[in-house]
C-alpha cells in the first residue's frame, strides 16, 4: 500500500485544505479579492488631445513619454491606457497613479505640455484632468456562477453515485468542492489580482477536477469489479488504480500546465492581468492533480475499508443468535409433545 494513501496523510491533507479554505474565506470576507486593473478603483491623470489621430507616430510617442515623465516626477504611474475617439480623431491618454491628484497639478501639467515644444501640441488642443473612479460590484456574476457550480456539484455526485458507487460520488463531490475552494482561497491569501475571469477559472477547476477524478475512479471501479482483486485489501486496489492512471492524469495535467505557464509568461510581457489569471489557473491544475492522485484515493480507500468491514461484520455467521433461537424453540416443542 502506498504511504500517500494512509489515514495519517489523509487527515493531514484535509486539515491543510480546511485551514487554507478558512484563511482564504476570512481574508476574502474582510479584505475582498485583490482587484485586477479592470476592476480596481483608481485615480487617473487623463491627457486629452483633440488632434491625436492626425499626429505622426513619433509625435504621439513624444507626447506620451513627456506626460509620463512629468507625472512620474510627482506620482508613481501604475498603468497606462490609450482611448481613441473614432468619430473625432481625438484620444485620451490615461495614466493611473498612486496618490491624490489635484486640479493644480493638472493645470501645471497642461502648461508644461503646451510649453514642451512638441510639434503641433498647443493648450487649445490638449486638456489635462484627473478622475477618481470606484468600481461597481458584480452581484449577478458572482451569485449565479456560485449557484451554477453548486448545481454542477450535485449533478457530479448523483451521476457518480449511480454509475459508480455512492462512496465514489461523495468523494468526487468533496474533491470538486475542495479544489474550487482551495484555489479561490489561495487567490485571496496570496492577494493575486483577479477580475471577472476568476469565475471562469473556478468553473475550469471544477471541470478539470471532475475529469481527473473520473480517470482514477474509472480504473478503481474496473479493478474492484475484477476477480483478481476481489480478496485484496481496499487500500491495495486503490493504490494500484492510482498507479495505473497516474500517467494519463499527469499527461493531461502537464499538457494544460504547459499551456498555462506559457500564457502566464506571455502575460508578464504584454499585460500582468494575464499572468495573474494564469497563476490562478496553474494553482487549479496543481490542486486538482493533488486531489485526484492523493486526496480522493486516500479518502475513498478509507470509506471502502469501513464499508468492507461493515459488510464483513454483517456476513459473519452469528452462533450466539442461533443458540438463542434454539432455546426459544425448545419449550415450544415440549409443550407440543405434552
Amino acid at each position: 500500500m502506498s504511504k500517500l494513501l494512509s489515514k495519517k496523510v489523509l487527515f493531514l491533507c484535509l486539515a491543510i485544505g480546511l485551514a487554507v479554505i478558512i484563511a482564504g474565506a476570512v481574508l476574502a470576507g474582510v479584505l475582498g479579492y485583490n482587484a485586477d486593473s479592470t476592476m480596481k478603483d483608481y485615480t487617473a491623470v487623463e491627457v486629452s488631445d483633440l488632434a491625436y489621430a492626425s499626429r505622426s507616430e513619433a509625435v504621439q510617442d513624444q507626447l506620451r513619454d513627456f506626460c509620463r515623465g512629468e507625472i512620474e516626477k510627482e506620482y508613481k504611474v501604475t498603468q497606462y491606457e490609450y482611448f481613441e475617439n473614432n468619430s473625432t480623431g481625438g484620444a485620451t491618454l490615461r495614466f493611473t497613479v498612486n496618490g491624490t491628484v489635484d486640479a493644480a497639478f493638472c493645470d501645471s501639467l497642461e502648461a508644461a505640455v503646451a510649453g514642451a515644444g512638441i510639434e503641433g501640441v498647443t493648450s487649445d488642443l490638449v486638456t489635462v484632468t484627473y478622475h477618481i473612479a470606484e468600481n461597481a460590484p458584480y452581484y449577478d456574476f458572482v451569485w449565479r456562477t456560485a449557484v451554477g457550480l453548486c448545481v454542477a456539484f450535485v449533478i457530479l455526485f448523483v451521476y457518480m453515485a449511480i454509475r459508480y458507487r455512492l462512496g465514489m460520488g461523495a468523494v468526487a463531490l468533496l474533491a470538486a468542492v475542495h479544489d474550487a475552494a482551495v484555489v479561490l482561497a489561495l487567490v485571496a491569501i496570496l492577494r493575486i489580482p483577479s477580475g471577472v475571469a476568476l469565475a471562469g477559472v473556478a468553473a475550469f477547476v471544477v471541470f478539470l477536477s471532475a475529469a481527473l477524478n473520473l480517470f482514477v475512479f474509472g480504473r478503481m471501479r474496473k479493478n474492484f469489479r475484477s476477480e483478481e482483486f476481489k480478496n485484496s485489501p481496499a487500500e491495495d486496489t486503490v493504490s494500484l488504480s492510482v498507479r495505473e492512471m497516474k500517467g494519463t492524469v499527469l499527461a493531461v495535467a502537464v499538457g494544460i500546465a504547459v499551456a498555462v505557464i506559457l500564457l502566464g509568461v506571455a502575460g508578464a510581457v504584454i499585460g500582468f492581468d494575464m499572468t495573474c489569471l494564469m497563476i490562478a489557473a496553474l494553482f487549479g491544475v496543481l490542486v486538482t492533480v493533488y486531489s485526484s492522485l492523493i486526496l480522493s484515493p486516500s479518502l475513498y480507500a478509507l470509506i471502502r475499508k469501513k464499508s468492507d468491514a461493515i459488510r464483513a461484520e454483517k456476513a459473519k455467521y452469528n452462533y450466539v443468535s442461533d443458540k438463542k433461537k434454539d432455546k426459544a424453540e425448545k419449550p415450544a416443542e415440549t409443550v407440543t409433545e405434552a
Partner: protein
Amino acid sequence: MGKKKSVALIILVTVVLLGLLFISVTPAFYVNATQRFTSLISIFDLGSDLGGGYSVVYYPEGVITAEEYAGLVAQYEETKGTEDETADPAGQYTAHKGIYLSEELMDGENVTETFRTEFENAFRAICERFENKNFTDYTVKLQDDYTVYVEIPNVERNETVSSLFAMFAYGGSLTFTDGASNEMIASRETVKGASVVDAGDGGYAIKIDFTKEGRSAFSTLTGDMVSAAGDSGTATMYIRVGDNDLVSNGIQVNEQLDQNSIYISGSYTTRESAETVVCVINSVLSEDNQFNLSLDASQIYSYGPTMGENAGLIVACIVGVCILAMLVYSLVRYKGMGLAHVYGFLTYALALVLCIALLDGITVSMAGVAAIVLSAAVMVGFNFFAFKNIRDEFYTGKTLTAAIKSGYKKSLALTIDSHIVLFLLSLVVYLIAVGSAQYMALIFMLGTVISAACTLAVTRFYLYMFLAQPKNKIAFCNLKREETEDE
C-alpha cells in the same frame, strides 16, 4: 479496409483537413482590390480582455467635462468686452474632482438632494442593465461621484455600440402610447417582463408578457387607439421609456389586442440588439430603476485588449505552439496511432473553430481559452488512454486488430462516462451562470461533444484507415512483440 479505398480516403480526408486548416488560421489577405480573405479565427467574437472594446462616460445634464469647461472659458475670454460676451463659466460651474457641476445642481457647496437621489437611481439602473446584458466582461465605475464610466467588449458586429450606450441611459417609466391622449404606464403590476424570441427569417422579436391586470389595461388601450384612429382603423403605438422611443416609428395596431403577450419584430436582425431593448424594459419595470435625469453618452472611445496589446494573437500563437508540440510528441511516441491521433485532433480542433466562429452568441475571453485548452487536453488524454489500452492488450498476446478492438472496448465505458459528466456539468453551468463562466461553459460543452465524437469514432476510423497501408502494421503502431524462446 482495402488499400485502394484507404488511399482514396487518406487523400480525401487530408485535402478536407488542409482546406479547413487554411480557412481557419491563414492570416487575412486581399484576394483582389476589393475583396479580402478573412480566416475563421479572426472572426471570433472576443471579450474585452482579448479584443478590447468601447468605453463611454455618462454625463448627467448639468455636468460637463474639463474639456467642455476649457472651451467655455476660451469662448468667454474671446468674447469678453464685445456685445456677444458669454457668461463667465467660473460663475456658472463648480469644479468637482475632474468634472464641473452646473450651479443649478448645487445647493450651497453641496449638490441638491433631488439630483443626488436621481443620480443614485440612474447609477443603479445602469449597473443592472449592463449586468443583465451578460457580456463576458464589462466594467461600470462611479467616476468623480457624479458620472458613470462604462467599458464593454467590442460588440460592433452584432449591434450598434452608440445606440446600446444611448438606450441604456434612458430614464423614466415604460409607456405604451399613441402619442396623443391614450397611454398606459407599465409597471410590475401590469407587465411581467420582456424576453427575446426567435422570429425565424424575420430575425428576432421582443415578447412582452402582461399580467391579468395588464392584459385588460392593454386591451382597453388598443381598443381606444383603434377607435381614435377613425376611418383608417389603424393606429400607431409607440413604446417609450421616458421620452425615448424603444421601437423607431412605432408599431401598427389595427384591432383591439386582448392577449397575454405581444410580439414586436421587424427591427432586430441580431439577438443582441433585441436583448438591449429587453434589458431596458425589464429594468424600468422596477420603480427603483426609474430616474428623471438626462444622461449624455456621446463621447464613445475605443480601447485595446485589457490583457495587453495583441493579446488575442499572442494567445492564439501560444495555443498553436502547444498543439504542435503535442502532435509531434504523439507521432514520436505512438507513430501510426499517433498519426491517427493527429488527424483526429485536427478534426476536433477544426470542428471547434467552425462552431466558435459560426455559431451565434459565443464570445472567447481568457476563460474561454482555458476551456479550449481543457477540452483539448481531455480529448488528448482519452486518445492516449485508448492507445495505452491497445498496447496493454497487444502485450497480452493478441493480434493487432484484436488488441485495437479490445483496447477501445476497455476504454469505452470511462470515455463515455467522463464525456457525459463533463457535458452535464458544463450544460448546468451554461444554463445558470452568467458572464465569463457561462461563455466558458458553452465553449467547454461544445469541446466536450466534439471530443466525444472524435475520441470514440473519428480517431478510431482514422486508425483503421492508416492501418490498411503498411506491410508491418505492428512496427507502424510502434509496438513490439516480446521474443519467446521456442522449446
